[in-house]
């Protein structure tokens, strides 16, 4: 399939959840997950992301990798809205365990096509129990 073509929808949308549980730079998981999300976004499915455990560290603001010789890929999370990935579930308990608050997270938004392109937050804070429910509703869970 040519990269320049939009992939046809299957007409049968499935719910995909990408689970992110790792800190961003110690292992390759976070970056790999993000790349798979961007590639998978071509396949017209219902895609959302979950961040819990150390995964919440992926979306904290003010990341600066200039001293460690690695690419700072945190700005790319803010492009997810362009790829129609508009739901990022973040677990409150994981933030609290790490001394973080929602204010420590990057501002990640999307433009709602159905609401005159109003800019809305993509991050949804959920409790552990709510996150369990979100996971239970999925057709496919991809863990990183």
């Amino acid at each position, binding site marked *: 399939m040519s990269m320049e073509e939009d992939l046809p929808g299957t007409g049968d949308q499935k719910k995909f959840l990408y*689970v992110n*549980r790792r800190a961003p730079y110690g292992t390759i*998981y976070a970056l790999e997950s993000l790349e798979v999300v961007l590639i998978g976004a071509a396949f017209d499915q219902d895609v959302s992301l979950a961040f*819990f*455990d150390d995964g919440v560290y992926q979306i904290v603001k003010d990341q600066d990798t200039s001293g460690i010789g690695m690419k700072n890929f945190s700005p790319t999370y803010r492009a997810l809205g362009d790829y129609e990935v508009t739901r990022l579930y973040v677990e409150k308990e994981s933030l609290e365990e790490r001394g973080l608050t929602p204010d420590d997270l990057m501002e990640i938004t999307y433009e709602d096509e159905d609401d005159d392109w109003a800019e809305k937050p993509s991050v949804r804070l959920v409790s*552990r129990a709510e*996150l*369990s*429910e979100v*996971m*239970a509703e*999925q*057709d*496919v*869970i991809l*863990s*990183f």
Partner: protein
Amino acid sequence: MLHTVNKSPFEKSTFESCLNHARPGDAVLLIEDGVYGAVKGTAVSGQVAKFNGDLKLYALGPDLAARGIKDASLMEGVSVVDYGGFVDLVAKHDVSQAWL
């Protein structure tokens, strides 16, 4: 839902996170180093026991055997499955979540 866990509970909090996110009626299959979490009388077995009953615990036999873990060392309520049983568990549940 079927959860699989492949990390030792003594090195990573993966198993603990899985237990905290699983819902009653879910199945948890311990594989690879995850099988250490099925052993009784360890620092984590008390916590695991709290979920026993709500969750169905399985451990993969070949991984237990490879690590010298005898059935008699397993916590109560843990069922041992072979590779065929692993496949059956995946087939039986609509969704699988791999805790890595």
